[in-house]
Each structure stands twice: as structure tokens, then as C-alpha cells.
């Protein structure tokens, strides 16, 4: 069966030549096989016809030995070239996918699925290797081999050679009768397998809960059901698959029988010699070797193509960002200014509906509002994770669209809700913001975020390993490292997006103290749903359903009696009631 995939062919640029080298080496091995069969067949035939004394023994044995060495060397070289091919593909394709990955935005990742994305760039790339160094050469070989063998047999017994050639070219397409059914079952299989593995993941992650709530047996029963479903489908696939293989074997072996029978007839008629007939028998088996091989590796091709589909999904995401230096119509505002900005994630429902926000240099500006009001979307715009639909944003007078995202982020940096800590040590996690910083500088920044003493107390100091994805750090420590990064980066604008929403009370206090200190030298943009933390901002913008409905400092807004003052009152009540209603400690 033919499995040609455009994505895979396109990605093979740079090592295509090697694929053909593999096919050529396979043919070289076949030349060895033919040479060997010829030599042995001739010896046996001559034994009969001339008697033991007159056989060209030395020549023929030497020839069969050379043939064996050709086969050995050929096979070993095939491995070597397969490796070259794989090595090149591994680096070039993985780099291509990875650099694409880095350009994706968070929305793309959640659409394609993070696990999916990772699988396609790791396991997917490994799987498609088989396609390049096994399937494609195998396919070329399955056409070339019968033709070559045909020429080798042509002068031994022409009718037998024609018969074998025709059968070898027909038998592969014949298998297509099973193809549609198998394809349909295969997609059921993948669905079943996905259901099984996601159920397994959930079963393990939620195992404590499941066991505590006594639902383990139910879970295990369902799991068993899903596992059996998968096995039933794959067994059905195997049945069809082996029907196909069995049928091909039947046809191929019957044609060997027929070819030998033709030779037998010609022998009886005396029109061919005995050695020719023996060579036909010996080579007829090899005639179909390439086809058997192709059947054997077919599932590898299918896996490779499935993986290519997933890879294409990642590569096809359009991540091009508009950068137009000509849009540099300047204004005189020193700071960041959003002018009548609208935005929509899906081009239908506008999330921001004409937002005007001014963030003057060295001020502290806060965004408030209930969840879903558009605060986080404004942050995404400020960092240029997304571009405005209409309206514009300027930073110190320059249009956002005239600045490449990576350049923009040298000016404006963010501390997200959950800072991501990379595996490695504390130093690595800080150096990503400024790779030239020395230990002294790092420690002084850590002092600013109240981590300096703690790091000094560690036996390995800055070299302390933070565990897999920072698992050895507490929530507060992670956020503080995130802030230390922002300080190191020297960006004049820093966004704090719910930076303390998952930390304890003490860390929260320390973090806000630190942020307050930063406000003296940098421009801060603070998003927090806990309004007591933004009370001191120079200006608070209140968003409601994608629009700015109020702005001003805390006192002004409280006097307005609008949504801000309502929210503040509600939160105050709750905080007080929980404390007053508390029982006595001890």
C-alpha cells in the first residue's frame, strides 16, 4: 500500500539524498543475494552435468563468498546511513517544531493541547524516523527488487520470470481490499487508546480522592472495560491485517509453485538446463522478500504519518506577527497609552470594547473589576501576546505595532499569577533575566524580595537545586523569584498580574512591601482582585464588561459610590466577619 505524505516529504529537505542511498544499498544487498544463488545453483547443476571433477569449483565458491561479504557490508552500511538520516532528521525537524512552539501563544497551546504539542515534538519526531529510513527506502526497493530479479532470471527461464514479476507487482495493490475497513478501525483504536490513557492519568492523579471516597472498585471496573474495548478493536484489526498477509503469502507461494512447475515442464521438454531451474527455485523466494519486508514495516509508516499529522497541526499555526516600522506616527505621551482599544479572541465577541488607559512614567496604575471584565486581556495586550483589533497602544510615543514583541519585552515585563520556575538551580532561574549578573548583584536583588537571608542560609546557596519545575519551593518563594527576575531585567515597566493570589499571608505582606519599593523607580501596572492591595495606586481603572467605567485614586472612587466602592465594602465586610466570628485559639 502506498503511504505518501506531503508534510513528511516536505520536511525531508536536507537529507532526501540519504534516503535514496539506503534504497541503493538495499539493491546492492540484492545483487549479493542473486550472485550467491547463481553461484550455488551453477555448482549444483554442474555437479550433475559434468560430474564432480569438472565443476568450476574455486571460481564459484569465491564468487559466493564475495557475495556473502557484499551482503554483510551492505547491511552494516544500511544501518550507518539510516543513522545519518535519523540524526539529521532528528535535529532539523525537532528544531523546526521547537522554534514554532516558542512562537505559539497560550491560546494556541491550549487549543492543540499541551500534551499533544510535547508528544509531537518528542515521540512524534522519533516515530517519523521509521518512515524516512525504513518505509520510503522499502517502497523504492519493493519496486526495484522484482525488476532487478526479473532481469537476473530472464535468461534462465523467461516465462517463470514474467509470471513472478507480474505477481510481485500485483500482490501489493491487491491488499487494498482490506484497507478501508482497517483505516476505519484504526481511528476507533486511537480514540479508544486515548480514552484509556486519559482515564488512566485521571485514575492516578485522583487516586487518593477515589480511594478515600471508596470508589476504587468502580474505577478499576471501568478501566478494565476500556482496556478490553481497545484490545477487541486491535484484535479485529490484526485479523484483517493477517487475512491480507495470509492472502498475499498464498498468492506468492502458489506463484513460486507455478514458476517452478513451468521450469519443470521446460526441463521435461529439454529446453532449459538443470542449473537454471535450480536458480529459479532459489531466487523465486527472494523475489518476494522485498514485498514481505514492506508489509512488515507498513505499520511503522502509518504511525509515522499519524505523527506527521500532529506535527503539521503545530507547524501550520500562523504565528507571524505584524511589525510595521512605518506605523510610527508619534505622540508625546511619556508612558503607555491605550487609545480606544478593542479586542476579540474569536473575532465575534469583543472582550475589550474601546478601552482608554494612560499609564504615565513612574506612576503606579491598577486595574480592578470582577472576574471576566477584561483585566487579563489588557495584560495580554500590554505584553503584546496579542494585537489590538482596532485602536492602538503606544509606549513612550512609539506605536506597539512598530516594535517586535521580543524588543518590546525589554521595556515591559510581567510577574504572572503563577511564576514558572525551571528545573535547575536558583542562579539559572535568575540569570534568564540578565545573564551577565554576578553573585553579588543576584543576592542584592534577592534581598529586595526578602529571599537573600534564606538563600545565604542554604549550604549550596545560589546553586541550590529547585527541584522538578521548582517543586522544592513554596508558592511564596516562587513568586518572589519571579519578582527578582523582573527587577534584574531592568525593564522600566512591570506588570503584576494577580501576583499574590496563591501565597500565604506573610509572603503576601512581604511581596507588597517590595512592590511598593519598586514603585519609586519603575512604572507599575497592578492587577489584583483583592482591592485592599491597590489602595495606594496613583490611579485605579475599573473595568466592567470590557469598558472602563471608573477611574481615579482610591478616595475619589470611594466617593463616587460606583462599582469600586461597592466591591470594597463587600470585601471589607467579609474579611472582618471571618475574623470576628473566629473561635478562640488554644
Amino acid at each position, binding site marked *: 500500500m502506498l503511504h505518501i505524505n506531503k508534510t513528511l516529504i516536505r520536511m525531508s529537505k536536507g537529507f532526501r539524498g540519504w534516503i535514496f542511498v539506503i534504497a541503493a544499498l538495499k539493491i546492492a544487498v540484492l545483487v549479493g543475494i542473486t550472485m550467491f544463488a547463481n553461484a550455488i545453483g551453477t555448482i549444483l547443476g554442474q555437479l550433475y552435468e559434468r560430474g*564432480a571433477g569438472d565443476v568450476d569449483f574455486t571460481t564459484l565458491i569465491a564468487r559466493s563468498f564475495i557475495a556473502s561479504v557484499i551482503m554483510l557490508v551492505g*547491511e552494516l552500511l544500511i544501518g550507518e546511513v539510516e543513522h545519518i538520516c535519523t540524526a539529521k532528521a532528528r535535529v532539523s525537524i*525537532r528544531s523546526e517544531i521547537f522554534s514554532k512552539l516558542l512562537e505559539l501563544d497560550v491560546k494556541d497551546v491550549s487549543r492543540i493541547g499541551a500534551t499533544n*504539542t510535547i508528544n509531537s515534538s518528542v515521540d512524534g519526531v522519533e516515530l517519523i524516523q521509521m518512515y524516512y529510513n525504513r518505509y520510503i527506502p522499502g517502497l523504492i526497493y519493493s519496486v526495484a527488487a522484482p525488476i532487478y530479479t526479473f532481469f537476473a532470471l530472464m535468461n534462465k527461464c523467461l516465462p517463470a520470470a514474467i509470471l513472478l514479476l507480474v505477481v510481485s507487482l500485483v500482490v501489493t495493490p491487491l491488499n487494498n481490499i482490506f484497507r478501508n475497513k482497517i483505516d476505519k478501525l484504526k481511528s476507533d483504536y486511537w480514540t479508544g487508546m486515548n480514552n484509556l490513557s486519559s482515564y488512566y492519568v485521571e485514575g492516578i492523579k485522583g487516586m487518593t480522592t477515589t480511594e478515600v471516597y471508596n470508589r476504587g472498585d468502580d474505577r478499576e471496573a471501568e478501566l478494565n472495560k476500556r482496556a478490553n474495548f481497545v484490545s477487541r478493536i486491535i484484535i479485529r484489526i490484526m485479523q484483517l491485517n493477517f487475512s491480507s498477509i495470509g492472502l498475499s503469502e498464498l498468492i506468492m507461494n502458489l506463484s513460486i509453485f507455478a514458476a517452478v512447475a513451468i521450469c519443470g515442464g521446460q526441463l521435461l521438454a529439454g529446453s532449459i538446463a538443470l542449473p537454471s531451474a535450480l536458480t529459479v*527455485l532459489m531466487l523465486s*523466494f527472494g523475489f518476494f522478500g522485498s514485498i514481505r519486508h514492506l508489509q512488515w514495516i507498513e505499520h511503522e509508516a502509518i504511525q509515522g504519518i499519524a505523527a506527521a499529522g500532529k506535527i503539521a497541526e503545530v507547524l501550520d499555526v500562523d504565528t507571524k506577527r505584524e511589525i510595521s516600522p512605518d506605523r510610527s506616527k508619534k505622540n508625546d505621551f511619556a508612558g503607555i497609552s491605550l487609545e480606544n482599544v478593542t479586542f476579540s479572541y474569536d473575532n465575534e465577541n469583543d472582550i475589550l470594547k474601546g478601552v482608554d488607559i494612560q499609564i504615565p512614567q513612574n506612576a503606579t496604575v491598577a486595574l480592578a473589576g470582577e472576574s471576566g471584565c477584561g483585566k487579563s486581556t489588557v495584560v495580554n495586550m500590554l505584553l503584546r501576546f496579542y494585537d489590538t483589533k482596532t485602536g492602538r497602544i503606544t509606549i513612550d510615543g512609539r506605536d506597539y505595532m512598530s516594535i517586535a514583541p521580543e524588543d518590546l519585552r525589554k521595556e515591559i515585563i*510581567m510577574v504572572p499569577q503563577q511564576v514558572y520556575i525551571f528545573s535547575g538551580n536558583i542562579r539559572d532561574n535568575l540569570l534568564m533575566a540578565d545573564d551577565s549578573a554576578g553573585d553579588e548583584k543576584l543576592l542584592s536583588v534577592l534581598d529586595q524580595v526578602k529571599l537573600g537571608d534564606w538563600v545565604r542560609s542554604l549550604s549550596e546557596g545560589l546553586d541550590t537545586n529547585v527541584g522538578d519545575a521548582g517543586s522544592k519551593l513554596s508558592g511564596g518563594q516562587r513568586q518572589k523569584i519571579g519578582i527578582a527576575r523582573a527587577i534584574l531585567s531592568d525593564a522600566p515597566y512591570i506588570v503584576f498580574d494577580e501576583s499574590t493570589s*496563591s501565597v500565604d499571608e506573610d509572603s503576601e505582606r512581604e511581596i507588597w512591601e517590595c512592590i511598593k519599593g519598586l514603585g519609586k523607580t519603575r512604572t507599575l501596572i497592578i492587577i489584583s482582585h483583592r482591592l485592599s492591595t491597590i489602595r495606594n495606586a496613583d490611579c485605579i481603572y475599573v473595568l466592567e464588561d470590557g469598558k472602563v467605567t471608573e477611574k481615579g485614586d482610591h478616595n475619589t472612587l470611594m466617593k463616587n459610590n460606583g462599582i469600586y466602592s461597592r466591591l470594597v465594602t463587600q470585601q471589607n465586610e467579609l474579611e472582618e466577619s471571618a475574623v470576628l466570628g473566629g473561635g478562640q485559639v488554644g
Partner: protein
Amino acid sequence: MAEAVAKKKHKYGLKEISKRLLEISKGQKGFIAFATVASIVGNLSQMGLMGFGAAFILSCAGKLDAGSPVAWGIVMAICAVLIGVMRYIEGFASHVAAYNLLAGMRTRFFNSLRKLSPAIMTEKETGDIVSIAIGDIDTIESFFAHTIGPMFTVIILPVAALIIAGFVHPVYVLTLIPIYLITSVIIPLAGMKAGRNIGSAYRKSLGGLKSFILESVFGLKDVQIYGQGKVRSREVVEKSNALNKIDHKKTIHRQLISALPTFFVYMARIMIIFLVFALVIRDPAKINGVIVLSFVVSASFSSTQSLISVVSSLTDTFAAAERVFDITDREPAVVEKEGADVLTNGKEVTWQDVCFSYGDKDIFKNVNVDIAPGDKVGIVGESGIGKSTFLRLLLRFWDPDSGSIKVGGKMIKDVSLKSLRDNIAMVEQTAFVYEATVAENIAIGVPEASIDDIKTAAKRAGISNVIERLPKGYETQLGEYGINLSGGEVQRLGIARALLKNPDIIVMDEPTSNLDVFNEKQIIRTLQEEFRDKIIIIVSHRRSTLTFCNKIFRVVEKNISPVADLK
């Protein structure tokens, strides 16, 4: 020396793994026997096709007295048909057996995990465990489907060829035996031994690459903010190159174990020709036998070839089996007593002289704790000192080394796990959200609960208005492919679960650690109002979370003691 190091690296020997896999395969012995017989008949037919084919040609050429061209032709045709039919039977039967065995292994593996939870989760990452359950177990297919059959044929076929050779001349037997030994025993075994370390190195390198890419995707925002793309890309190339080095070894190994036996087979065939020659010079009458034999012998290596082709995958298979056994062989932490009593209430909790150690670390020594009905107990202490262990001992995830834990007046060791856990509900650091509807998620402890009860629980947990605003209300799908709830909402969901189950004891492990102060206060207010007469045991490092407790215990240096003042 190198051998000793290699041995240490692997917990199980090749022999032991094979034995245990064969043991497992007994579950499908009917199909496996069927497949093996078909494999033998098929391979013998392969030899027959060649041998009878040679006889047919000789007979046509008038060199063979025995039989007639028609007779030889008929048996040859029968062999041709048998090969196709047997191929189908072998393939089908062996895969029925293999995939049924895999399904069973997956379920049993899950069962082992249940007995080992939660300890196993803290030792291994979810990703690792799942890749064993799905990927590794899948790899074992090649043992069940492609190894057992060839293991028999690789013996039977050479024996058949040797018998035929014996009829022709004993010297053939002596020549062939070492060749069969080299190609069918020595090379495959040596190949497997040599491949074990290469296989695990490859896997490790690939795993490292995967973690790196995983971090890059999960930390994508931070990578983009700090322009770390180029640095990370360079590292991906470096890691891929390192993988290439190991892959090179793997390729050489694979190629050697497939090309060398083939080379030996060809050498063997040349040697046979030498013998033919020598014999024919001495006794020209033997010529027919030796010609037929040389064809039979070449076909008899077909089973060697199929064994060789699974050897390179077998090293993966054995590594996979090793990882499976490594987990299933662990001792479960607790075993339910036979004829266990039923716990009917959880009105009080008593610890008497409890000692417990984990690994070689003593966690508790002679700990005594009394909890009375309605108590609200706070547990404080430095992280890693054993606060969560306190809860886990109570839920019987582990047993104490000595001393007794009583709930509702009964030793928890003597009651069934089910009845113990029926009387205790647990709210974790982050409530686990299942891929299921909101209603199913709340009713996890009481699957038969009516929708009204579920709604009441949600209302009491203060989450009903959030749920009602969801697109399909209580029927809304949650989880990865459904709606995501916020941290505070998820914790409320966990509380709704506990409320619906309505047991006498509720234990909470850092229920507020992922919440901000604001959400924390809302949750505490709910706890105060809704669990007035229950025992609550709450572990927290936050003072503010424990304001409503009437008893505070501090875990210090292997002991638990009451504290009067939190500060």
C-alpha cells in the same frame, strides 16, 4: 567488573523476566499453543516448499528415481497453500492472546497502584506511571505475539533439518549443529545482553529531552517574556545530538545482530557445498539427497530470521517488563484484616503510644492524641515534619509500627477499609476534579445521591450560584476538555463533596494553601457554619486558617503536643 556493574543496574535477570512473562502468558495458553503449532507447521511447509521443489526439479530432469514429477508437484503445492493459511492462523491467534493479556496486565497494574497509593505517587511522577501502564505494557506485546512462537520453531526447525541431514550423511549433522547454535542461540542471547544498557540509555536520554520540552511549553509565557527562546532552542539541538550518539550505538547493535547471523547462514551454505562436493566425489549416488538438503537447510533458517528480527525489540520489551514488575512487586502498605469489623461511627479519635517511621526516618514516637466529638483540631508544624502523615495514618494509608489508633471506639486495624473511609471525608490541598459533570464530581462519595441532595450540598458549600451560571448548570462537563473552575471554586467543590457524604470526621490537608487571603476567609466561614457538630482535623501552615479551631496541636520532633497560643 563491567559485568558486575551491569548486573547491578538491572533488578531482574533476563531469565527471570522471561519466566515471569511466560507465567503471565499461561492465561491465554489455548491461543498461544494454537499459534505456536501454526507457526511450526507454516515454517515446516516453508522447508517443504523448497525441499519438494528441489525434488520436483530433479525428478523432471530425470535425475531422481523416487516419486514422480506429479507427486512432488502436488506436495509442493500443498506446502504453498499451507504457508498462507498457517500465516493467517498464527498471526491472528497470537495477537488475540497478546492483546487480551495486555488488557489484563493494565487492569492488574492499576490494582497494584491502588494498593501502593498514595506512597507511589510521591515517588514517581504521574507521567512515568502512565507511560508504564500504556507505553511499556504495549511493548510487551512483542513478547507474547512474536517471541513465544519463534522460540519453539527455532528449536523444531533445525531439529527437523538435522534429522533429514542425518539420513543423508552424519557429517552434515556435525557441521550444522554449531551453526544453528551460533545463529539461533549465541548471537540472539549475546545481542540481548549487550542491548539492555543501550536501550535504557536511549530511553533516559529521550526522557530528559521530553522533560525539557515539557518545561518549555508549560513555562512558555516566562520563556517569551524573558526572550529565552534562542537559549532553549540551542539546548534542544544539544540534547538531540546527545540522543543521536546513543542512537548510533543502538543502530550498530541492531544492524550487527541482524546482519551477522545472516552472514553465518551464507557461510554455512558455502560449507554445505564443500561437503556436497566431497561426498559426491566419493559417492556420486548421494547427489540427489544433498541437493534437496541444501534447499531444506536454507529454508530452515527462516525461523532464526524471525527470532533475530524480534531480538532488537526484545531488549525494549524486557526493559519495559522490568519497569512493570518493579512496581507490581512492591509490598502494599496496608492489608485488610480477614473478617474485618464494620466501623459504624466516627465520634471520637484516640491515638495511644503511636510510633511510626518512614524509610529510616522516625516520624512519630509514642504519640498520644485525644479528639472529642465536635472538636475542631488544627495541626501545625514545620513542613516535612509529619503533619500530613498524621492524617494519612488516620485514613490508614499506612499502619503505625506500634501503638493503636482508634476511631469511634474501634481499632482502625480491625475494621474494613471501606467502613473506615465511609466515616471520614478528606479535603485535599487542591480538590481533584474528574472529567465528569459538576453533579458527578460532587457526588463522588455518594454516586446514588439525588440531584436535590447534590444541589443542597453545593448551596451549603457556597458554590451553587457559580454552578447555576455555568452553560449547562449541574450537567456542565469539568476537567481538561471542559470548563475550568478557579482555585477558590475548586476548593468549594471539595467541601460540597464532603458535605454530601456527611461523615462524622472531616480531615483537611492544607485546604487553603493555594488560595489568597480573601478566598481563604470565605472558605473558613463556610466550614464554621456548615460543620458545626463534626470533627474537623485541619493541617495548615497558615495561622489565619486555624482561627476557628478549639484545639491546636503542634508536631515537633517525633511528637505531637497541644499548644495554647499559636504565636
